[in-house]
């Protein structure tokens, strides 16, 4: 996996000569992948994936050349309730034994101005790959106090569980999951 990530990072840097390559700072936890889903239609249940890694390339002058790829360890799902997490990891939902990894690889970025963009790409979950669009927004970039350079974004998207072959019935209000990504990358 690491090799693939490096190969992709290398390919990205060749493709976009100007764009800088960033590694998402999951080590320092300046990034998070959160989800929320309706509970019975009465409230939002939120959770996150604790373990993931990824890279992106971005240049302020050519945002449409940006690329991002993130792999998520599905076993790291955390809804702050062990019994529920056990259920979510079981074959009623994520089946993390058979599908230990979820992945997003961008294919195209549409600049919408003001630092917002649509990041289109393929999202793989539960062994199913489907195209999705993440509505992303640049939060900021610049030097950090420790000699590095960072850029950060947030993005949201909504997926239907059924599209990914997850058909445990949680009720009509809980057919879709909203994903919220916060990524801060350290320039390489």
């Amino acid at each position, binding site marked *: 996996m690491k090799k693939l990530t490096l190969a992709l990072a290398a390919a990205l840097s060749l493709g976009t000569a100007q764009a800088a390559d960033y590694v998402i700072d999951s080590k320092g936890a300046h990034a998070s992948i959160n989800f929320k889903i309706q509970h019975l239609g009465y409230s939002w249940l939120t959770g996150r994936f604790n373990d993931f890694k990824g890279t992106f390339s971005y240049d302020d002058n050519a945002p449409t050349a940006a690329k991002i790829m993130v792999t998520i360890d599905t076993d790291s799902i955390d809804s702050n309730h*062990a*019994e529920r*997490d*056990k259920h979510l*990891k079981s074959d009623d939902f994520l089946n993390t034994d058979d599908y230990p990894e979820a992945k997003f690889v961008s294919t195209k970025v549409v600049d919408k101005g003001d630092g917002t963009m649509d990041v289109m790409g393929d999202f793989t979950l539960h062994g199913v790959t489907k195209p999705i669009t993440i509505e992303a927004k640049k939060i900021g970039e610049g030097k950090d106090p420790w000699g590095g350079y960072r850029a950060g974004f947030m993005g949201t998207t909504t997926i239907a569980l059924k599209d990914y072959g997850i058909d*445990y*019935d949680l*009720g009509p209000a809980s057919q879709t999951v909203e994903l919220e990504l916060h990524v801060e990358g350290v320039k390489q």
Partner: protein
Amino acid sequence: MNFRWPRRIVIFHWVSAFTVIGMFASGLWMVDLTYYSDWYKTAPHWHKSVGLLLFAITALRLMARAATSRPPSFGNTVEKTLSHVGHALLYTLMIALFISGYLISTADGRAIDVFNWFSVPAFGELFENQEVIAGDAHFYIAWSLIVLSTIHVIAALKHHFLSKDDTLKQMLRLR
């Protein structure tokens, strides 16, 4: 010397026997409940409550058993050895079942409510991915216990019908 098991041992035995069977059945059934089932919340709550109560009962049972000398046993040396190993394994599997079940529900530090009478505190997460590992262990230990219990029943029936000795009567207090 006793010729049969004392009443307390007999009660402990049969309470455990029927509870274990009920817990096995309820455990298999409840993990497949749909989200909108009336039992979705109640069944696991009762399963955990009964399991922890049986844990306490089993602790008392082991103390009672340790303080009791057994009535005469029947069969040849091999049968007696197998019987000792089998019974030790039954107790071991039960305790392993209690511990693994407890570790599932307490993996996030939550206490377990016993019928809303009192709650048993958690130690929190003792190892990574605890709820899943403990859950898998709980499943396989439960099956092992039921298989061994079945062998235990067959052995008791063998003593009663083939060997025609008093093994089963000792536990039924019929003699």
